[in-house]
């Protein structure tokens, strides 16, 4: 089959060949071209699908956000209104801007925490101790549950009904001990901010633990890929665990930090507790497609730009082992 293709190519592309040398050269070229065609063949299914189920909807959705959309016969009727949907969404929608700023703020402080937490847990789970398999199984459990509506119900129960396990767990931290300590030390100004910050973090331990399943998994994979020679060298030089973490572990896992960052952000899009997405869904149910599209695009572009900037900064510090 491949040979046939080669022959075809040969006859079609350049019929007359003066000397034997160029023939050889061309044969190589056509083989390459043949492989190129196979490449397209392999991705052709995806290309068709992407055109219909991704690219066209994406462009349409962008178009909808500039239009007054109504349902006509057999298709959607659009009526161009320029930027007014965007103005409406930002200026007049009662909930959108507050939801948006809340969600963005949450992503902003939660993502680094999730990353730090999952790296920490991955380092622990990478050590040898009894019960490691069990602990790993437990810590990966959120991977299979946290993306679904079950998570919404359990986290809702945690917050609304007063029967809050996570809150009970975190009251140990939230009793303003830190604030008192700081006051005792003579630091006044930041104490309030600090203690509110720490208590928010403590109150959200539930959310952080539950949204770092995959991240732990990826970090653990990275940790297992650290070459034993690096470990040995560090041990011989007498590095402490602390030094080992900063000098060996962190550089080796740094490419994964970027991947995990992106993953965490994407996960926050589809999180069932994301209020912006909830608002978009609500708009859709009221058949306000233009507004819904505008909301989705504003949110998406803000996050995309933020992720782009952060990955640019992070990628400067990423260490890739020279092969």
């Amino acid at each position, binding site marked *: 089959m491949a040979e046939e293709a080669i022959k075809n190519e040969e006859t079609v592309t350049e019929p007359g060949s003066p000397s034997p040398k160029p023939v050889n050269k061309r044969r190589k070229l056509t083989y390459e071209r043949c492989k190129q065609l196979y490449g397209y063949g*392999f991705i052709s299914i995806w290309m068709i699908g*992407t055109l219909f189920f991704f690219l066209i909807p*994406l462009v349409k959705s962008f178009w909808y956000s500039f239009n007054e959309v109504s349902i006509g016969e057999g298709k959607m009727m659009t009526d161009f209104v320029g930027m007014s949907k965007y103005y409406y969404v930002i200026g007049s929608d009662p909930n959108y801007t507050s939801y948006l700023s809340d969600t963005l703020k949450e992503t902003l402080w939660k993502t680094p925490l999730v990353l730090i937490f999952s790296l920490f847990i991955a380092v622990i789970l990478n050590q040898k101790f009894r019960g490691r398999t069990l602990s790993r199984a437990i810590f990966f459990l959120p991977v299979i549950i946290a993306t679904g509506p079950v998570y919404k119900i359990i986290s809702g129960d945690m917050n609304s009904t007063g029967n809050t396990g996570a809150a009970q767990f975190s009251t140990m931290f939230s009793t303003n001990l830190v604030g008192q300590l700081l006051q005792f030390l003579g630091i006044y100004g930041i104490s309030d901010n600090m203690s509110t910050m720490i208590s928010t973090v403590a109150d959200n331990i539930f959310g952080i633990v539950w949204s770092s399943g995959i991240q732990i998994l990826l970090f653990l994979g990275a940790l297992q890929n650290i070459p034993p020679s690096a470990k040995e060298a560090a041990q011989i030089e007498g590095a402490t665990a602390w030094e080992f973490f900063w000098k060996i572990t962190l550089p080796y896992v740094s490419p994964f930090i970027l991947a995990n960052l992106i993953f965490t952000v994407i996960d926050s899009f*589809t999180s069932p507790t994301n209020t912006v997405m909830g608002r978009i869904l609500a708009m859709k149910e009221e058949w306000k497609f233009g507004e819904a599209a505008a909301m989705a695009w504003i949110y998406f572009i803000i996050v995309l730009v933020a992720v782009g900037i952060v990955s640019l900064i992070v990628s400067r510090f990423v260490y890739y082992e020279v092969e």
Partner: protein
Amino acid sequence: MTDTTGSVVKNESEIGNGLTPRQAKKLRMQSMTAEERGYVRRKAVMDAVWPIFRFVILFGLGFVILYPLIYMVSCTFRERSDMTDPTVMWIPRHFTLNVLRETLTAMDFWNTLKTTLILNIGCSFVQVVSCALTGYGFARFKFKFKGLLFGIVIMMILVPTQVISLPLYTQFRYFGIRGLFTINLIDTLWTMYLPAITANGIRSGLMILIFRQFFRGLPKELEDAAYIDGCGPLKTFIRVMIPNAGSAFLTVFLFSVVWYWNDYYVSSTFFVNTNTLARMLTNLDVELKIRLFQSASVEISPREQIVWKEAGCLLSITPILLLYVCLQKYFTEGIARSGITGI
């Protein structure tokens, strides 16, 4: 520094075999510099304290994770009056199977489970196959616009479903060639199957990426050997690459099942009367009122509703939990091995 280490060696060689290990250790400690002694002591302390510390952390956080599951089980087997009884925390006072039974009827569990399974396993299967083909294409072939096309894959990972779900809805509502024929595919399983077949299902971008990274990691000699023996690229893929990619296939398949299982957003965009477990669970409030009390206006206090909700949660995670327990190895090791992070 070199002097001291020299003396250490000398001392130890002088010591001979006549001493107990303890004495030998003491001697060794004496011959060390203060710095070295400090290091050894600190290390000993850390070695003693760290396991305790580690246990406390793991136990506490493990509790945070397991708490909702234990609570689910506890709620499922209690009567709803136990919810308002302040003395009941974990162990129900009135043990009952009624709640479970009621939830089973309210969710129409067995039928829903059947739909969910048909949808999940079928979609995951075709999606894994199509994503593997695409991933292989990106991993091993050079063609024009490859960078651009791969950029689209990355876009597929980044763009949230919410952005495209609406035009997708109209696409399925009036599916076909405009002017010739249109079919309404809404509320049929095709809305999930068609994207899955064409590698555009739930999180398929990620799966293409995983497969690409995986196939890139396999040695090229494998294929070269097959080519020399006269296999075409497709045959090579089927005969040589797939047998080598078993674990990657299984991992991606499992994650795909989990993501389809948990998906609520996409299915509720396209489905009206076709119910998956995730949809059922989200609408459980209404269903309960209609099916159990025959009217939508019955007021049950939110606290008492928890019993059914938790039972519903338990029912809908049990199958996937069983899968996880049986195939835990592939969940946890596969994704790390397939090396998704060459981004």
